[in-house]
């Protein structure tokens, strides 16, 4: 997609560039507002990019599903593939089918049903689409639970595919509302919840919430009693809602939440709360990191992290502190890896040094070049730069430092430098690089780090599209 490269380099190079660009985009973009960009420009950009890749490299487009990209892009790829119709070649067809099936299995249920809703809205109703939806619905282990929790969406999916909804499921979804008693316990609970508060508390949180309003139960009372039916994500999400009510609190199990989610929650707390929960948080981090590091080989002895904590890492109202949470998560991960002896030496070099890494806030200017020089001077094996790439103190100097270093010292020092960027840049259809010559990868979660290190190595060593395809096929198996 770069005009310059077309003139100077081979077709292979362009193909690789395009693909790297697409994988980076698929790791970072969620069509949400960013610090410097609106959701509108993000939407236009990612939609175009998907169409471009689908049109030119359909096989690879489908294979990207296996690369561990984020949920938003997975569902968008499935949507575009289904909308484009099945490919002619039979082996492609089978491979795509497998990829779609696996992707849907890995996606959260709500996202899958949202995707089905989008298919209906776009009036994508070819035979393959119907088969995919049907297969998914049939494969669900507890269809009654899905029907209760995602009632409207399941209804949409069933009508869209002309499925036969016989028996109680059909009556529950399409029948007259109060109706006769059900045999299925959950349907019966749902029916009773119209009249009984006790039955209401046995329903999933989001469903019960509506009934609570109907029964006129106070928010505090409701939150207190429904806690056993909340998912972990709901517990985190409702912290501030609960804190508004008097004498109400929702317990959070720090050990059950993933690293980035946990970091996001931690960064959302104010100073007082952070001081109160610090020990619990540290234990939670220990637990999460140990789980992540099990059987993982960082493959390097000395690691330096150049961490950007500038104000722009605050993100946006739609993704609050997401970029900062990635920095925080990676720092905690590497710090603990060092403590556990997985690497010999680790140090973080901050854009503006925080007094305490646990009390991290987005603050100050984006000064990357200075900590980068310090990191280079320590001569580590690997330097990770985590930044949104909007360098401004002074702008563009990291590029110059990197080029000068590469020219003079790269051979003797043998240091790998990777820039991880959590923010998608709509104008360039990829993440914003600090230097054109530096390996720049998109990152969504701190948990992706092991994969990205592996992927980064592959990208550095191989340059042709066929290798790429093989690499992604390897992921599939």
């Amino acid at each position, binding site marked *: 997609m770069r005009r310059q490269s077309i003139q100077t380099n081979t077709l292979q190079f362009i193909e690789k560039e395009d693909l790297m660009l697409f994988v980076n985009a698929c790791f970072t973009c969620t069509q949400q507002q960013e610090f410097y960009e609106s959701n509108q420009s993000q939407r236009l950009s990612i939609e175009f990019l998907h169409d471009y890749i689908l049109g030119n490299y359909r096989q690879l487009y489908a294979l990207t599903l296996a690369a561990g990209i984020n949920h938003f892009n997975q569902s968008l790829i499935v949507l575009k593939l289904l909308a484009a119709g099945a490919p002619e070649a039979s082996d492609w067809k089978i491979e795509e089918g497998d990829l779609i099936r696996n992707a849907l299995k890995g996606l959260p249920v709500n996202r899958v049903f949202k995707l089905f809703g989008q298919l209906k809205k776009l009036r994508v109703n070819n035979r393959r689409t119907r088969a995919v939806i049907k297969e998914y619905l049939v494969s669900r282990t507890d269809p009654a639970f899905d029907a209760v929790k995602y009632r409207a969406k399941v209804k949409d999916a069933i009508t869209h595919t002309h499925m036969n909804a016989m028996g109680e499921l059909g009556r529950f979804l399409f029948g007259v509302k109060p109706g006769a008693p059900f045999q299925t316990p959950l349907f019966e609970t749902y029916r009773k919840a119209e009249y009984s508060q006790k039955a209401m508390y046995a329903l999933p949180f989001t469903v019960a919430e509506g009934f609570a309003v109907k029964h006129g139960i106070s928010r505090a009372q409701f939150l207190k009693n429904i806690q056993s039916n909340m998912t972990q994500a709901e517990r985190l999400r409702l912290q501030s809602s609960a804190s508004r009510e008097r004498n109400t609190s929702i317990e959070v199990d720090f050990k059950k939440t993933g690293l980035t989610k946990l970091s996001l929650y931690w960064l959302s707390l104010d100073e007082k709360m952070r001081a109160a929960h610090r020990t619990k948080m540290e234990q939670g981090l220990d637990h999460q990191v140990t789980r992540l590091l099990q059987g993982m080989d960082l493959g390097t002895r000395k690691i330096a992290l150049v961490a950007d904590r500038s104000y722009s890492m605050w993100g946006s109202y739609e993704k609050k502190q997401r970029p900062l949470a990635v920095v925080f998560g990676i720092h905690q991960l590497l710090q603990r890896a060092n403590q556990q002896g997985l690497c010999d030496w680790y140090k973080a070099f901050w854009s503006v040094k925080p007094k305490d890494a646990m009390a991290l806030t987005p*603050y100050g200017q984006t000064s990357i070049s200075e900590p980068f020089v310090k990191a280079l*001077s320590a001569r580590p094996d690997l330097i990770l730069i985590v930044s949104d790439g909007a360098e401004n103190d002074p702008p563009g100097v990291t590029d*110059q430092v990197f080029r000068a*270093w590469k020219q003079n010292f790269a051979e003797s020092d043998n240091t790998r430098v990777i820039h991880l960027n959590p923010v998608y840049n709509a104008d360039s259809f990829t993440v914003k690089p600090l230097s054109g010559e530096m390996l720049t990868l998109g990152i969504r979660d701190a948990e992706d780090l092991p994969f990205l290190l592996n992927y980064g190595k592959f990208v550095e060593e191989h340059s042709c599209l066929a290798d790429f395809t093989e690499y992604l096929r390897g992921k599939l198996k």
Partner: protein
Amino acid sequence: MKAMSQSKYVLTHLDLNQFTLAPSQVWGNIRLVPVIRKPDSAAPEEKAKLRLGLRSYDEPYSIVALDGKPSLQDTSTCYYSYIPHAMVATWSNDGQPHAAQGCYLKQSKKKQSDNMVRLEYRMAKREGLNQYRFLPLHLAMEGFLSICFNGPNVAWGEYTDSALRFGLQQRSERSVNGRCIDGLEEALRVFEIHPNQIGMVVFVADSLASIFIVSHPLDYRVMHQSLLEDFYGEILFYYGATDYTAPDLLDAINNDLAEDLEIQKVEDLHKIVDTARQSWQKEQTGLMQEIIGRQIESKVVNRLGPFRLQRFTTDFDPAKTNYIGEALVRKDGSIEYLKTFNLSRAQTNRVRLLKTLADHDWHLEQTAKTLECTKGDLLKRLDHAGFGYLIKQHLMNPSAHRKN
């Protein structure tokens, strides 16, 4: 007074040598340059401390009685404007920390005022022993409007009776609110404040819009958004609307900084960063050449303990952009507060005309000679500048007079 003007208290020219200009942050055609104070040799504890705070005014319009008498009754001169906030300065002589009263960060219990007009007494007013309230930038603007406000001091025949008796009837100038400058709001939102930043230089389409400096980094953080509420020279509205992208100054300097540097070991790479910083500082100072080092005329408004509040103007040279502003200066000449406003060409011409008249005791022929035009031309210029009412009608428009 003479001894005072020689001391460092009063600014004779503007320089920002005591500050570092960090590399600018650009958003479209807005360039924002962070100002950081250079580390001081004197122990900071011994120095008197100055803190500034904002006191917001809700009223859409304000009237300030300039002589401090009850406004609209006994006042002879009033200043009318929209005033979004007042600035409150508190200081301590012993280096103890202070915060301005009425400017604490606390939850507001005050209901929004229902008044449509706010009545204030004086542009700058003492509020107790160590506290002082002034209306930022309006203080400088009022000083600008009051230049030659008394009118002719010699009763030449050409002037009307009212001009001789009461001086200028009223003076008004236009400016634009920060919100009217396209992109400024977004530029301020995405701006990343440096940890020890104490000020900001605002460029619109690389033309200087304002220099704003306070004494304490925390005060700056609070006042960062107030740059949007301030008023700017009219021309900046048009500059803001231009389709211009402020360029990366580094490209203009040198695309390869490492070329001329001696880099022996990895640690030497620091030199690249340092060179880049120095180049930025130089280039950005270059952008401000119209105001840096220029002769300015300052007038002390009041003394605030060890500080002097003053307003200043440049020399009204019609070939250059002219500025007015206000400053709080410490005994050793260090600037603790600074705010500037750039005048349009028409504004410069108006005040230059008045000043030249005043220099010649309002004698029209002599003034015309200095300005190298005829008396008739001068009268025309006065009329265009909005001062026609000072001259008798039959002189202003002789042909019309003859017809009748």
